[in-house]
């Protein structure tokens, strides 16, 4: 069992994952900050389109390259917000055979849609950026958070998903007219393309065909890259941290994420539960509720009614969490209480850090 502090001091890559609204971004920033405090050169990457990390770090806006954040720590703290499209553009340029091929792809309307809208692209590009920062720069700690959706772990399939997309039958059908397939296939394909064009419009299909023909020869580069990115994710120096809140529905989501990671052969290295209600004393909610009833109408009765509320919610939260904690064992469970205010500066992150790292 490794502590979270150990991860912040020794892991090379930390991925914070979990459903929306549980504090992933703040957690990621707090881990990077702790790394910087321990003398490391740390960068935090967010792919959350809401500018929450920018809020958390008091930045006006983040670009696709890391920006250094000044502060009193031994190491360095950098932050960036992922720009999915320009990350994809960089990849295209990298793997195209010449500038003309790159330009043909970058200017294609279908490509613009893929790079911006294909489900899984954002997740895939986040992992690509993570790989790039880890391999090609001198950061010794890269912390990244995942998008706030149920599909957040699609990046585990994303490399495969994208290459599967390129291998797709429809792609081959669309390409058939230009590749001189046997006539029978060609006729069927043309009929199919005609019908699809009728539904979505001919221009749309033309854009797709142009894209696929421009992309020829680049698939291998993409596939190889996707493979090494996946290898980095399963490396022992990469740690997945699951972030949750103790509500029943978010715990269920977190369990889903934990299983998904397990299926990919990746273990959860720590579970962070934000927004925990505090516990007040050791008694049972029922006992407090009973006293509230017998003392109803008095000041002390009101105090007991309130205590009963919080004891009830605290015990429910622990009940909700017990299954999840078992599922991720032996990963440590770190509980972070409700904070007085939202985190939008280094002081706030420092307070989060106190709960995370003890």
């Amino acid at each position: 069992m490794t502590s979270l502090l150990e991860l912040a001091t020794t892991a090379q890559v930390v991925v914070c994952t979990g459903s929306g609204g549980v504090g992933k971004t703040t957690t990621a920033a707090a881990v990077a900050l702790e790394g910087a405090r321990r003398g490391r050169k740390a960068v935090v990457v967010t792919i959350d389109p809401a500018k929450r990390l920018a809020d958390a770090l008091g930045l006006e806006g983040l670009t696709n390259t890391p920006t250094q954040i000044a502060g009193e720590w031994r190491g360095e703290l950098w932050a960036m917000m992922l720009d999915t499209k320009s990350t994809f553009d960089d990849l295209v340029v990298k793997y195209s055979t010449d500038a003309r091929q790159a330009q043909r792809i970058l200017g294609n309307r279908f490509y613009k849609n893929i790079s911006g809208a294909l489900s899984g692209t954002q997740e895939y590009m986040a992992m690509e950026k993570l790989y790039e920062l880890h391999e090609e720069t001198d950061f010794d700690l890269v912390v990244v958070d995942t998008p706030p959706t149920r599909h957040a772990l699609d990046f585990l399939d994303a490399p495969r998903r994208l290459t599967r997309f390129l291998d797709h039958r429809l792609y081959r059908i669309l390409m058939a007219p230009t590749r001189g397939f046997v006539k029978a296939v060609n006729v069927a394909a043309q009929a199919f393309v005609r019908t699809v064009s009728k539904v979505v419009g001919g221009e749309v299909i033309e854009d797709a065909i142009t894209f696929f023909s421009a992309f020829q020869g680049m698939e291998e580069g993409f596939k190889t890259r996707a493979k090494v990115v996946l290898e980095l994710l399963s490396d022992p120096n990469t740690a997945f941290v699951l972030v949750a809140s103790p509500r029943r529905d978010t715990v269920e989501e977190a369990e889903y994420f934990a299983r998904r990671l397990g299926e990919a052969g990746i273990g959860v290295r720590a579970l962070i539960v934000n927004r925990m209600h505090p516990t007040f004393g050791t008694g049972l909610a029922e006992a407090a509720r009973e006293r509230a009833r017998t003392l109803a109408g008095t000041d002390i009765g009101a105090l007991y009614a309130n205590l009963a509320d919080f004891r009830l919610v605290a015990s429910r939260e622990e009940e909700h969490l017990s299954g999840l904690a078992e599922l991720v064992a032996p990963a440590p469970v770190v509980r972070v209480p409700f904070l007085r205010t939202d985190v939008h500066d280094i002081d706030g992150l420092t307070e989060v850090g106190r709960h995370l790292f003890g």
Partner: protein
Amino acid sequence: MDPARFFAASRVVIVAGKGGVGKTTVTAGLARAAALAGLSSLIIEVEGKSGLAALFGREPLTYEQVELSPGGGREGAADIRGRTLTPDDALLEYLRDHGLSRISRRLLSGGALDVVATAAPGIKDILILGKVKQLEREKVADVILLDAPAAGHAITFLLAARALLDAVRVGPINSQARDVLDMLTDPTRCQVVLVTLPEETPVNELVDTAYHLEDRVGVSLGPVVVNGVYPIIAGLDADPAMATAAAAAAGAGLRRAEADSLAAAAGFRLERTALQREQVARLADRLPLPQIELPFLFSADLGPPDLELLAASLTAGIETLSDLRTDVRS
């Protein structure tokens, strides 16, 4: 406003908000409140498993419509049904209905829809919204409640119709997008209920979403639901340090540790309540929409009994609304 009138104002109610604010709970609560006002409802889920059915003590929803609550009973409530909508299923149905079943299987096998959807983004959203529009036309229920995708995506989701009108200028997708846009922008057919928590970041995001939806989509906004507000406990408004004194006065003979727990719990409640009131006031200040508050549920069970509580709070909230529609800009 009379709840029956509120729910009769538009057949489609889209419930939207950022992740973790309790959008699904509010959707279920609204359905129950409508049922108690005598209006039947159909709940539509678009983002996979969400625990909505569990609130009714039922199994997860499927594409086939199922009964969530049979109606009748002591309250003479109307019935509540639920279903999911996925782009793949909606497309299959659409193609079948338009005499294109021949290609439907090929288009769906192995995710070919992904290729087409990439060629014209928004197509998946329009397939879902198109189906919602069809259900609205068919008057499948008095109220159709759509549990929308989380926050940022809700805007893209609802903007899909406008975007597709530009991208695809002719053909069935174009007319589909036009019909959907007509529905979204007609306040007598559709309104959006936004959900938030009384906390800083959710309030900020809600205000942004509200302006985006009204300006860019042109959709009409209903009341804002503020979820998770700590209920007031009568008598719990004094200095938390009063615990010991109150105990002494009541002759309750408290142990010191017990008195400390009571005081700390009271202090926590009072502090959080003050923070929540501050955020509710800030929301009112920045967004001129009526608000309905829902209580924080300490039982945190999210089962049928909680649903009754939420429905009652929603009904009470709706009753306090004025009959006049409010516009964000007015």
